[in-house]
C-alpha cells in the first residue's frame, strides 16, 4: 500500500481541487479546513515517503500496471521525495498564512477557486518532481503554468492581469519549447520514458546530432523561461510582485525551483554525459547563472517596492541553484539542491513578512518602512532573519547552501565562482540590511490610523518559517544526508 502513496497524494490533491468548486454556500466555510487537511496529509505522506525511500531505496511506480516504456512511470527517488517534501511543507505553511490574508487581497467569491488553483499547482509540481516520463512531465508543466497564472491574476487589479498575461505568454512559449523538445526526443529515440530515452540517446547522437542539440536547447530555453534564468526572467518581477502575497511566496519559493529540478533530472538522467563534452550546456548554464546572480542582485538594489525587490532577489537566488547544476560537481550540486529548500524557506518567509506589512500598514514602498519594526517587531524580526540568511550569515540556512556551493566550486578548482557568490552576498547585504535597519532604528513615525493588528494565524507561519531558517542553519544534517543520496543519480 505504501508504494501507492505518491500517486495517491497526487490523486488526493486533484480530487480535492475537483471537489472545491462544489462547496457552495454553507459548505464554503469548510473549504479552508479541507484544503489545509489535504495539504497536511500530503506533507505527512511526503515525510513518510522520505522514510520509505531512505529505508528501501528508490522505487518506481507503474501507473495502470503497464511497465515502461508502454505505460507511465513514476520514479520515486531521493530527489523526488526531497522536492515533494519541500513543496508540500512550504505550501502548507503558506496556506495557513493565506487563509487570513487572502480575504484582504481577493474577493470572497473566488476564494474556493483560489484553493482549487493552489491545490492543482501543488499537485502538478509534485507530478513534475515524481514523473519519469517526458510527456507526463509536459502535461504537469501545462497544469502548473496555468494554475500559476491563475493564482496571480485572481487578484482584482489591473497590474495583476497584465503581469499574469505576460507570464502566461512567456510561460506557454516555454511549454511550447518543451513540447517540441519532447517530440524531437520521441522522434529520434522512440521512447518517452527517461530511462529508455537515456539508453537510446548515446546511439542517436551519431545519427541525429542536430536533433538532439535542438531538443536540448529547446529544453534549456523552455525551462529557463519558466524558472526565470537570467535573460529570460523579465516576466518574474511583475508577476511575483503584483500577485497576492501567498501566491508570491509559493511562486518565488517553489514554482521556479521545480523547473530547475526538472531540468536537472533531464540533464543528468536523460541526456548522455558524452553530449556535454561536445555541447557545453553546463558551461552555458553556469555563465547564465553568474549573470543571473549578479544582475538579480543589482536590479534588486534599485527597486522601491518591497515585493519587487524580493522578486528580483529571487532571480539572483535561482542563479545559485543553476550554478550548482552548472558546476557539475557533487558538492556544488548538493549546494544548489539544498539551496532549493533553503531559498524556499527564506523567500517565502520574506514574502509573507512583506505581505504582513502590506496587510497591517498598507505600505509597499521601501522608503515608507521606516520605523515599522517598532510597530511590528516580530514580523520585522523574521524579516531580519531572512535578510541575514540571504547574506549568508552563519547560523542561518543561507550559509549552508553558500558553504557547499563555494566548496563545490573550489573542489573543481574554480575560485572565480566563490568570488561571485561572495560578491552577490555582499550585494544582498547592501539592499536587504538597510530595510532592516530603517525598520528598527532611526526616524520614529507616529502610528498611522490605518494600522491593523496582525492576526496570530498570519504571524505564526512567518515565525515558523523563520524558525526553520535558523533550525536548518544549525541542523542541516538530515536534509544534506537525503540530498547526498539524491545526487548519486
Amino acid at each position: 500500500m505504501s508504494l501507492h502513496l505518491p500517486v495517491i497524494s497526487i490523486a488526493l490533491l486533484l480530487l480535492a481541487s475537483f471537489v472545491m468548486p462544489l462547496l457552495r454556500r454553507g459548505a464554503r466555510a469548510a473549504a479552508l479546513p479541507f484544503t489545509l487537511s489535504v495539504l497536511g496529509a500530503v506533507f505527512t505522506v511526503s515525510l513518510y515517503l522520505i522514510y520509505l525511500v531512505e529505508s528501501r531505496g528508490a522505487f518506481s511506480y507503474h501507473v495502470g500496471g503497464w511497465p515502461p516504456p508502454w505505460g507511465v512511470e513514476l520514479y520515486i527517488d531521493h530527489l523526488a521525495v526531497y522536492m515533494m517534501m519541500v513543496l508540500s511543507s512550504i505550501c502548507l505553511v503558506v496556506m495557513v498564512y493565506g487563509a487570513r490574508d487572502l480575504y484582504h487581497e481577493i474577493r470572497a467569491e473566488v476564494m474556493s477557486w483560489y484553493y482549487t488553483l493552489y491545490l492543482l499547482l501543488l499537485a502538478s509540481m509534485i507530478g513534475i518532481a515524481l514523473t519519469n516520463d517526458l510527456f507526463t512531465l509536459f502535461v504537469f508543466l501545462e497544469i502548473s503554468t496555468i494554475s500559476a497564472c491563475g493564482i496571480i491574476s485572481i487578484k482584482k487589479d489591473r497590474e495583476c492581469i497584465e503581469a499574469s498575461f505576460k507570464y502566461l505568454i512567456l510561460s506557454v512559449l516555454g511549454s511550447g519549447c518543451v513540447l517540441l523538445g519532447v517530440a524531437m526526443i520521441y522522434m529520434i529515440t522512440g521512447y518517452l520514458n527517461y530511462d529508455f530515452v537515456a539508453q537510446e540517446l548515446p546511439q542517436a547522437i551519431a545519427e541525429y546530432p542536430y536533433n538532439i542539440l535542438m531538443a536540448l536547447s529547446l529544453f534549456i530555453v523552455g525551462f529557463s523561461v519558466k524558472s526565470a534564468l537570467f535573460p529570460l526572467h523579465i516576466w518574474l518581477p511583475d508577476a511575483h510582485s503584483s500577485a497576492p502575497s501567498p501566491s508570491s511566496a509559493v511562486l518565488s519559493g517553489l514554482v521556479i525551483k521545480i523547473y530547475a529540478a526538472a531540468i536537472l533530472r533531464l540533464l543528468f538522467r536523460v541526456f548522455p554525459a558524452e553530449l556535454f563534452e561536445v555541447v557545453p550546456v553546463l558551461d552555458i548554464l553556469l555563465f547564465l547563472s553568474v549573470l543571473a546572480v549578479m544582475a538579480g542582485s543589482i536590479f534588486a538594489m534599485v527597486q522601491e517596492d518591497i515585493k519587487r525587490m524580493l522578486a528580483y532577489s529571487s532571480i539572483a537566488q535561482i542563479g545559485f541553484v543553476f550554478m550548482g547544476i552548472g558546476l557539475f560537481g557533487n558538492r556544488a550540486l548538493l549546494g544548489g539542491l539544498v539551496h532549493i529548500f533553503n531559498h524556499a524557506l527564506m523567500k517565502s518567509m520574506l514574502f509573507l513578512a512583506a505581505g504582513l506589512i502590506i496587510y497591517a500598514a498598507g505600505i509597499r514602498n521601501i522608503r515608507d518602512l521606516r520605523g515599522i519594526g517598532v510597530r511590528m517587531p516580530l514580523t520585522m524580526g523574521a524579516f531580519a532573519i531572512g535578510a541575514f540568511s540571504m547574506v549568508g550569515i552563519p547560523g542561518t540556512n543561507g550559509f549552508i547552501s553558500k558553504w557547499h556551493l563555494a566548496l563545490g566550486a573550489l573542489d573543481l578548482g574554480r575560485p572565480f565562482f566563490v568570488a561571485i557568490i561572495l560578491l552577490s552576498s555582499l550585494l544582498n547585504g547592501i539592499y536587504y540590511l538597510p530595510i532592516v535597519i530603517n525598520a528598527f532604528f532611526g526616524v520614529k513615525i507616529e502610528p498611522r490610523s490605518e494600522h491593523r493588528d496582525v492576526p496570530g494565524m498570519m504571524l505564526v507561519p512567518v515565525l515558523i518559517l523563520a524558525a526553520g531558517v535558523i533550525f536548518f542553519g544549525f541542523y542541516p544534517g538530515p536534509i544534506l544526508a537525503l540530498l547526498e543520496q539524491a545526487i548519486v543519480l
Partner: protein
Amino acid sequence: MKDIVIRTVCRVIVPFVQVYGLYVIFHGHLSPGGGFAGGAILGSSMVLFALSFHLEAGAQKLGHETSSYLESGGGIWYILIGLLGLALGSNFLTNRAAGLGFGLPGQLFSGGMIFLLSLGIGVKVASTMFTLFYNLSEEEGSGGDHQ
C-alpha cells in the same frame, strides 16, 4: 437571433448532434473518437442551442450549478475509477489487471475502465466548453450593460 429558420433548424439538429456526441463517446473504444471528440460535439450542441435561442434558454436547459457539478464530476469520476484499481489491489488506473476489464473486444460494453473513463472525459469536455462559452458571453453582456 430571432430568426425562425435558424431556430427551427437548430431545434431539429441539436438532438441529433447530441446523440452523435454520445455515440462517439460510447464507441470510443471501438471506432475513431472517444471522450474528447464526443465531449466536444456534445458541448458544441449545447452552445449551438444557446446561440440560436437565447442565453437564458440555454441556461434553463443546463444551469450554471449543474454545469459546474458536471465539470467537477467528470474529474472526480476519473480519479475515482483510477482509485478503483487501487481498491482492487492493483495500481492506480489499472484496467484489466485489476479485474475491471469485461466484455469481449469489439462489443459495446467492453474494455472495462476505458468505457467509463471516456464517459467521464466526455462529460468533462462538454461541460467545459459550455461553461466557458457561457461565462465569456455573459461577461460581454454585462460589459455592454455598463457602457
